[in-house]
């Protein structure tokens, strides 16, 4: 059918864009024309892209504002890093171990998504925003207060400090409270990151263009009408939120396996990160998956290219965010834009007539 082709074509274009960018980046890396700073950004970039797409699933497709996606990323990061660090000797094959770490990080984040979602998704939009923000902060706090060590007799937990773990000789501290996890195997590569981006796209785009996606978007557009045609609101809200959390967890796994030291700071797993990803989503277009990818790439790489403006980066983000929201959502601005578009159209017609 004609419709299938148009939709599949649109989706394919997005995959192509990602692949093309990957190829370009690889060429730049191999010819050495990329600064080491930018090179170091490539893996985190993949994490941010997946985060942006996952947040857009919640904000743009489900229509709920979540400000705690950094929390899901944190869960994915720490559970997978913990697993990888413990299993470094037990599972020496990097590929297998990384795959398992991905699964563990994703599943843990997904479970958190469901646990948070069940009580919280029935709340009105503003409340959901605050509660997800709270969740992100709670996760960060818990991780910072967590001490886990391993020795011959097994695992030890503490919330006070590493000494109270009571480790025997030869025991190792794995999670060191605010100092996080050190020595996670750096298994993430740019290629793996891009493959995961493509998989994320596959999942999200296929979900959107399916019966479940329609149900989710129906809930977004008009919850009462969706109920009246027999759509189970809770089930589909939870589905979207859980998938979104799972993907954020995957982003966390990528991010964690690229750092020598993994700590939960406000900068990378707190409010700031959640806001940054929200900016990506808003800039790329709420509901526009391809836009999220492009926005994430541009907004991550651009500040590095414009080093001079670095101090003003956050300020510029904030201003741009406000202006974009006003421009896209204010009824007066929309009116103005439509009038302008109509004027352009009639102007073009006039010119065409005169030309003839």
């Amino acid at each position, binding site marked *: 059918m004609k419709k299938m082709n148009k939709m599949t074509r649109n989706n394919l274009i997005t995959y192509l864009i990602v692949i093309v960018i990957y190829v370009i980046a690889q060429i730049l890396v191999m010819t050495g024309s990329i600064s080491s700073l930018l090179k170091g950004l490539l893996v985190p970039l993949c994490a941010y892209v997946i985060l942006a797409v996952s947040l857009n699933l919640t904000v743009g497709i489900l229509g709920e*504002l979540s400000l705690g996606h950094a929390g899901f990323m944190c869960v994915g990061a720490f559970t997978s890093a913990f697993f990888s660090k413990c299993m470094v000797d037990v599972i020496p094959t990097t590929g297998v171990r990384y795959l398992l770490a991905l699964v563990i990080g994703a599943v843990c984040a997904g479970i958190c998504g469901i646990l948070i979602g069940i009580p*919280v998704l029935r709340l009105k939009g503003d409340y959901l925003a605050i509660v997800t923000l709270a969740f992100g902060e*709670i996760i960060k*706090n818990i991780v910072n207060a967590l001490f886990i060590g391993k020795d011959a007799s097994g695992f030890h937990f503490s919330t006070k400090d590493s000494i109270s773990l009571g480790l025997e000789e030869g025991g190792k501290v794995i999670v060191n409270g605010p100092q996080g996890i050190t020595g996670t195997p750096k298994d993430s590569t740019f290629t793996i990151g891009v493959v995961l981006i493509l998989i994320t796209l596959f999942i999200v785009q296929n979900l959107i263009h399916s019966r479940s996606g329609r149900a989710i978007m129906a809930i977004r557009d008009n919850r009462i009408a969706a109920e009246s045609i027999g759509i189970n609101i809770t089930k589909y809200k939870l589905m979207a939120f859980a998938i979104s959390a799972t993907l954020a967890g995957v982003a966390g796994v990528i991010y964690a396996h690229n750092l020598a030291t993994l700590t939960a700071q406000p900068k990378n797993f707190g409010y700031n990160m959640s806001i940054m990803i929200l900016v990506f989503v*808003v800039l790329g277009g709420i509901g526009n998956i391809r836009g999220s990818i492009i926005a994430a790439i541009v907004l991550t790489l651009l500040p590095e290219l414009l080093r001079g403006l670095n101090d003003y980066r956050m300020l510029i983000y904030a201003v741009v965010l406000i202006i974009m929201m*006003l421009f*896209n959502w204010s009824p007066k601005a929309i009116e103005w834009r439509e009038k302008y578009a109509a004027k352009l159209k009639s102007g073009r017609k006039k010119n065409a007539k005169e030309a003839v």
Partner: protein
Amino acid sequence: MSFVSYLINGISLGSVYAIIALGYTMVYGIAKMLNFAHGDVIMIGAYVVLMMITGTGVPPMAAVLIAIVFCTVLGVVIERIAYRPLRNASSSLAVLITAIGVSYLLQNIALLIFGANTKSFTSVVPIPAIKLAGGQLTISGEAIATIISCIVIMTALTLFIKKTKAGQAMRAVSEDKGAAQLMGINVNGTIALTFAIGSALAAVAGALLCSAYPTLTPYTGAMPGIKAFVAAVFGGIGSVPGAMIGGILLGVIEIFGKAYISSQMADAIVFAVLIVVLIVKPTGIFGKNIQEKV
């Protein structure tokens, strides 16, 4: 004795939260939006006070007054530029995200002007500490000032809303904006007034908060802002007495949490309270159930 000391500190902290929560609850009840930037106006107020005292040497009370005026204007300007154009937007997410943008903007402006270094705040409270129970219990002047301010503000606000025309207009707009407009009430002006009052209170809260906990960074306002929102929800968003009860309860929970459980987990405990409240009674202690019209 330490229990009583904790209790008083909790009530004092809670009073600050209550004053902040009032701003949230009024704006939410009347303009039907969550002003994410509210916490950051507190921070701006505190910086203005600090600047006035250290830079120009004006007496503390004058500095607070200047901060109140500054924040009032700031609040009204923000509402006019960033929120009012989106009041009738197709999605309520729009103004919420914009408010987040404003919050971020304020934080980063402060960051650029004042830097990230913690500034030490000089208390604006001239009241000396009281010693009770033969020297075993000390109540700081700041705690006294905070609690008294909270009571005074609550009383003044309740009287304002009940007795004045502007206050009645606020109640009308919070019930039904359309009807209020049809009855000749200046909705734009009423909402602007709401933001003005809320922002003025934020300035006061900033001065009191930093007098009691004298560290100031551009991020100082964010957490108390969020906690105050928790308090407003706890007490029933849109309810003035709810904001007070919610704020004080939250302050007490936080101080006791810090004292008896863990300092780091205190924040987590506060948020866990929020989640529990929202599950059990989403409308809060004094909240009203608003049905969506089908």
